[in-house]
């Protein structure tokens, strides 16, 4: 109807708008630092950052750091998700334990986990596992709270019906609770991906021998803000890749959902 259709399904418009925003922000950033409105001391400059990223990849010096951080993140994400899912399901299905553990879980969630970094270092060493542990403590709770709630939101009728059909508790889990909680789980996963990255980088930042957080810590010490930003940007790209993967799984698992605009357009 209009010359340009601002529809979420028009992937061309979406892409153009995204790029416009991206380059707009980059331009403002560049302009700000170039014109000294933003102190280059804190904000670096886009060209320097780009140069740094290219250099990292050309010399290959970044790979071992990147590899470390990605491994930590993926492990934290996977372990945290599995634990969160497991505990969420388990507690949601045992109301007594849920009520008993409720304050303990909330207490643990409100503990500033950064402070445990030394204890993790004690238990898991300075290698990747202490960072994974930190990441897990962050990811776990995000997933846990959503799974717990998701399970309780299962439609009582569908649940009753499935029980009447003779499902045992394992089958109920697989055929009712999990599918029904799927959108809750994925909502938390989108958050958890970012959190897992935060966990590993912060863990590295507090003490490590390699990883992007280590790079950032060193760069900060010598006021190399461009490297700090470059490190963050590189991680962000990986976070988006991971998120896309999660979204694809989500779309597949939620294919049974009603979608808006169910009728096929005449032209299709």
């Amino acid at each position, binding site marked *: 109807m209009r010359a340009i259709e601002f529809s979420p399904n028009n992937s061309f418009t979406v892409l153009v708008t995204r790029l416009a925003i991206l380059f707009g922000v980059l331009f403002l950033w560049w302009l700000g630092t170039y014109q000294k409105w933003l102190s280059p*001391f*804190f904000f670096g400059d886009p060209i*320097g950052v780009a140069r*740094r990223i290219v250099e990292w990849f050309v010399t290959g010096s970044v790979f071992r750091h990147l590899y470390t951080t990605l491994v930590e993140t993926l492990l934290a994400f996977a372990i945290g998700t599995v634990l969160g899912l497991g505990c969420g399901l388990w507690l949601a299905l045992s109301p007594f334990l849920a009520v008993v553990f409720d304050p303990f879980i909330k207490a643990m969630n409100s503990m500033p986990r950064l402070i445990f*970094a*030394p204890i993790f*270092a*004690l*238990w898991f*060493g*300075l*290698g990747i596992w*202490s960072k994974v542990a930190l990441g897990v403590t962050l990811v776990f709770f995000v997933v846990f709270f959503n799974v717990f709630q998701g399970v309780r939101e299962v439609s009582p009728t569908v649940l009753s019906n499935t029980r009447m059909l003779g499902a045992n508790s394992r089958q109920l889990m697989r055929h009712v609770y999990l599918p029904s909680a799927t959108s809750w789980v994925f909502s938390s996963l989108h958050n958890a991906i970012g959190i897992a990255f935060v966990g590993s980088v912060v863990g590295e*930042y*507090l*003490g*490590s*021998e390699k990883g992007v957080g*280590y*790079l950032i*810590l*060193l*760069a*900060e*010490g*010598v*006021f*190399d*803000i*461009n*490297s700090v930003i470059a490190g963050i940007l590189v991680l962000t790209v990986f976070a988006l890749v991971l998120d896309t993967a999660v979204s694809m799984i989500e779309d597949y698992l939620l294919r049974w959902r009603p979608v808006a605009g169910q009728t096929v357009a005449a032209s299709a």
Partner: protein
Amino acid sequence: KDTPEKPELHIAAASTGITYLPMLVAKQRGYFKDEGLDVTIAAFSGGSKTLEALLGGSSDMVAGAYSNTITMATKGQHLVVVAAQVICPGWIFGVSQKHETDVKSPKDLKGMRIGVSAPGSSTHMAVNYILHKAGLQPSDVSIIGVGQAAGAVAAVRAGQIDALIVNDPSATILTKDGSLRPLENMRTADGNVKVFGSDYPESSVFATQDFIEKNPKTVQAVANAIVRAEKWIAKATPQQVADNVPPQFLGDNKALYAEAFTNSRRCIAQNGEITPKGAQTVHEVLAAFDPAVASAKIDLATTYDNRFVRKAAAEVQP
């Protein structure tokens, strides 16, 4: 040459600034390797974290402040310095531009906000000591932990703190553009003596007594490499130094690094030794505010061990 008992050595570094140059140079110039060591330097975001790594067993040695060995002695942990990296801490204690006129000496700081690297850290102790000498109580000022890097620079420039104790390169950045006017300069031998009355060992390399007993050859190898690096540094030009620091510890501003080095080079130790006087001074500084240190009976001579560096000085050629 003896082969070290533990060739794969993990050193936890509380910082990787200028005062840690001997270690960084030793690593970059291959001195550790020459001693048969494969050293990994782990960077930490503060001294307490390195100690936790050490006691937790994930690091073998720590590059950190000498004062830690005294504090830890009060907790029943026996740490021993095997090589000093500096003879003065390399700090600048200054006031921000805004207070340039009204603060002429530390006693004018009453009621102001003073930045230290972290509450409870060695910078905090030093500030306490300076204020104490000026006749102020710790409660007369607010202490804010701002780190040693961008946070500290930002805090001074934005006027969020009135005074700051900081080392290089932040010190150079801040004094160069006048954001910070030094009250005390602990980067020179004179300034250091003015504040503390003697040497003030800070950055050094230490390990647990246990480790030293079990791995004397390893410790000797470390001492050799550090002393060798110190000797090399003593003769090197700032440009050479900047060229011999691993790039990730340097950033992309070599000129700044060289300049900061010039400002701080007087502090770099030449022979890795800790003097009894220096140790005494550090103890006094701590004892003035930490009742645990004041009351504990600590034999300072057990907190450092100069044997290794002396042997190294005799043997090692730069």
